[in-house]
């Protein structure tokens, strides 16, 4: 539980951070809340000669709520929960953030770190895919945007280049029907299965639906088919069945201490049904 030696940098601007990252290449890693990176370093599963702490960069903490919502990468989960405008504009974000770990972790853990690390157990990546969010990456040649649905390649592998920093997340105001449903063994655990669902209703039918699942594959799973199965329905039993079947086709869970594959598939179905039912009631 003792990490190898590293140099610690604490730049005060994004430019300075990018320069450091450019100078040290893949020997450097940016540090946000540290709740994934530090344990991995203590276990010596990750080794970096340079840590570039982003805490002192104030520009990365802004939250802007308009038609589009833009959240600075260094915004903590606790700040997400405390922001009145966010609670009104994107209540699914609060609902999900409340289910992440415990207050101590939420005071340190950031939304940027959560989505950028590429850990399939994290809650925010799936939620961001459900919201069809866009990640803004800053690099030596300026910034570029990548869709959350295109960002994740494999566990801990993302579309971010080594010399880039994820600086912000943006997404449109979401549909009135929402739910983030998560089963976990205990506080602080990753999901056994989690589902993010957004539903817009019109005339008693589903007009649009978006479904994403967490910790059921080596990447977050945006299930286009599950959303499509709900379109035009009143979220009746047949529609739920169809959505679950579509979702099960998209996930690829692995056996671990949370249980065997069959259990995870079963629970994924149960959790998705519950999320759809709750979202539909709110739609």
């Amino acid at each position, binding site marked *: *539980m*003792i990490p*190898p*030696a590293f140099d610690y940098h604490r730049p005060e601007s994004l430019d300075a951070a990018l320069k450091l990252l450019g100078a040290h290449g893949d020997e450097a890693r940016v540090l946000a809340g540290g709740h994934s990176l530090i344990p991995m370093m203590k276990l*010596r599963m990750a080794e970096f000669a340079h840590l570039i702490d982003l805490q002192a960069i104030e520009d990365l903490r802004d939250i802007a709520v308009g038609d589009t919502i833009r959240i600075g990468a260094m915004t903590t989960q606790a700040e997400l929960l405390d922001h009145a405008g966010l609670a009104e504009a994107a209540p699914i974000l609060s609902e999900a953030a409340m289910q992440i770990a*415990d207050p101590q972790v939420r005071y340190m853990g950031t939304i940027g770190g959560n989505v950028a690390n590429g850990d399939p157990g994290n809650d925010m990546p799936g939620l961001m895919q459900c919201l069809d969010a866009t990640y803004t990456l800053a690099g030596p040649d300026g910034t570029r945007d990548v869709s959350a649905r295109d960002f994740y390649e494999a566990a801990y592998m993302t579309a971010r280049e080594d010399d880039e920093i994820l600086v912000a997340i943006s997404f449109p105001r979401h549909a009135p029907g929402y739910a983030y449903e998560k*089963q976990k*063994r*205990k*506080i*602080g*655990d*990753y999901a*056994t299965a989690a589902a993010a669902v957004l539903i817009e209703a019109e005339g008693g039918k589903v007009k649009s639906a978006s479904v994403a699942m967490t910790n059921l594959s080596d990447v977050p799973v945006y299930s286009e088919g599950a959303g499509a199965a709900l379109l035009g329905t009143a979220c009746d039993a047949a529609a739920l069945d169809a959505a679950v079947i579509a979702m099960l086709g998209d996930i690829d869970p692995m056996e671990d*201490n*949370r*249980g*065997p594959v*069959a*259990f995870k598939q*079963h*629970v994924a179905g*149960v*959790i998705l049904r519950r999320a759809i039912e709750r979202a539909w009631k709110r739609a």
Partner: protein
Amino acid sequence: MNEMTPTREERVANLKGMGCARKRVEDARFTQGKGNYVDDVKLPGMLFGDFVRSPHAHARVKSINTEAALALPGVVAVLTAKDLEPLGLHWMPTLAGDKQMVLADGKVLFQGQEVAYVVAEDRYIAADAIELVEVEYEDLPVITDPFKALEEGATVLREDLEGQTEGAHGPRRHPNHIFLWEQGDKAATEEVIAGAEVVAEEMIYYHRTHPCPLETCGCVASMDKINGKLTLWGTFQAPHVVRTVASLLSGIAEHNIRVISPDIGGGFGNKVGVYPGYVCSIVASIVTGKPVKWVEDRMENLMATAFARDYWMQGKIAATKEGKITGLWCHTTADHGAFDACADPTKFPAGFFHICTGSYDIPVAWVGVDGVYTNKAPGGVAYRCSFRVTEAAYFIERMIEVLALRLGMDAAELRRINFIRKDQFPYHSALGWEYDSGDYHTAWDKALKAVDYEGLRREQAERLEAFKRGETRKLMGIGLSFFTEIVGAGPVKNCDILGMGMFDSCEIRIHPTGSAIARLGTISQGQGHATTFAQILASETGIPADMITIEEGDTDTAPYGLGTYGSRSTPVAGAATALAGRKIRAKAQMIAAYLLEVHDNDLEWDVDRFVVKGAPERFKTMAEIAYASYNQAIPGLEPGLEAVSYYDPPNMTYPFGAYICVMDIDVDTGEAAIRQFYALDDCGTRINPMVIEGQVHGGLTEALAIAMGQEIAYDEMGNVKTATLMDFFIPTAWETPNYTTDWTETPSPHHPIGAKGVGESPNVGGVPAFSNAVHDAFRTFGLTQAHMPHDHWRIWKVASDLGLHG
């Protein structure tokens, strides 16, 4: 009497003696982060140790190359078995009569085993250096299943014992066999079972888990080469025993060893044994002449220091058609891991497992326990229970449920008709114990009434109908548990650890101004000894508890004792404390008689003073007597007011209790929500009701953890799958239900104050209550046994196997 004179009630209240819910005096420092733990010990020039550990569960060690590690600046030494061998310290004896490698000697036998010990100038350099030690391994076949270990032709794990057909506890019938330990009458039991009207049979597995105290194990060894004294600070539940063992192993005379247990952050049995880290730190300090600190991290604690349980218990219980139990048979296969390092009294290789007839009047019984070696970590400690008593209670409380199913009888009623009756105490059990006291029927009736048991069963039946109609996916389970603990080890005539009789001790000094210090042979790890032992002394001596310092854990100052585990502090050291207090009072009476110019027999004790019989205005308070003992020449009496008592208990004590758990189980997700938990404890005389309640809450929460998710699991290669707190379940406030506590009070007839001990009862009784609730929820669908831990997927699997997922 003027207005300033306190009334008798005020004097009693001022004492804060037995029965008072006195606030814990320890908490002021603990809640402010001002505790002083081993890792807080910092000495000039102190070095740090760290272990190279085996990544393999079973492998030949072909070579160890320490050159690169030694070349790292700041590395002082790297110890291997070769370095310890000339000292005879590459192996060490275990408490169970076996021996254990200190550092890998030719092979490794479990993942996480200590292979080399690096000593460096700081903790970080030590951690870097262990990566530079090059160890070449050659894999050997791994055995993690104790039944496979005993198969003919199975790989021999302990080559060092090859050819030894006799172990510390009798014959070994297989190279991987440690002992067969039997109690009771096998032939008579099997005869009863063969002729019984009803027999229920089941394999009950109590899985491997770990005490996992918040503070891990560690020590600081400091050898002073000038005066030849070794000081050893450590997380020791039995500091005096550690001193004796350290002396025997090192050859350092015992008076030249001082062992200090400072504040300990929980022990639960994990800190009873002697670990390689202690031996290596002592050797390193002797070699370098500098203090050496070693503190294991969480993964090391879970992987390498003592585990608990891992008992496969095959049971048969015989009864009449009416449910009267006629016999109990139990064969246990005990997985001890690579070395038999159980912490049990020497003559009891399976601890007090033969308390497994429980609270029931069972005329004939037999228990056989086969100890087996596997490629797992050694241990087998009493995790918040007396020695193997949780295993015993779980076994009998599951067998009762299995029998109730077989009989089609209500399990509460089955218990009631088989309880040992109040008039049968002292009761001699079929397996050889003498239960000192009990009143089981009263406790059971009180518990059932408190939860409205019949109402709960009606609700359960209604809920079941609703489930069958498809209106809910939740099943309600009612978990019953009635347990009898056996604690306070123990009588010196049959209880010892490495030859040390299991007495305990207390030494009291009363100061001239009427305050006092008392030192004991025990050591608190969170139990609140500084609070409760002062209360015993307050009641015995009349000195207010707030004016009594309790000190433990320093072998240079405390009288010899066997330490704190197995709920023995109150039954043994608590008795010594009361008796030492009585010696003080006896001398005080003589002093008072002299001062009041009356005969000793003309005085009577009144809370905090001796009063002349028939003349209440003539008295001497304990404070006045204490002062007189130091400043007056009293004919026939030595000056001062001190006493020592060493207490050899005549018998164990037998706390008991009735626990009832109600839970709602979601058959689709496997989640279990505990909606009610009622715990009635009878621990005899109650010293501090608030401390008891705290102990019960803590013990129940550990029981919850064990029953519902906590385990040390291995894969087939012998890799530990649960070595971090992500996977090893420690409940937080979020997972912990509300508990309702209650009590009856049946004092122990042989204990000076009638107290029996309580710290471990909730673990002993709690595990079957939680587990039985899970089983009960599925009872009507035909479930007889589902092994713990009852985590989500295992409960889901039960539901799935019973066809409840459509």
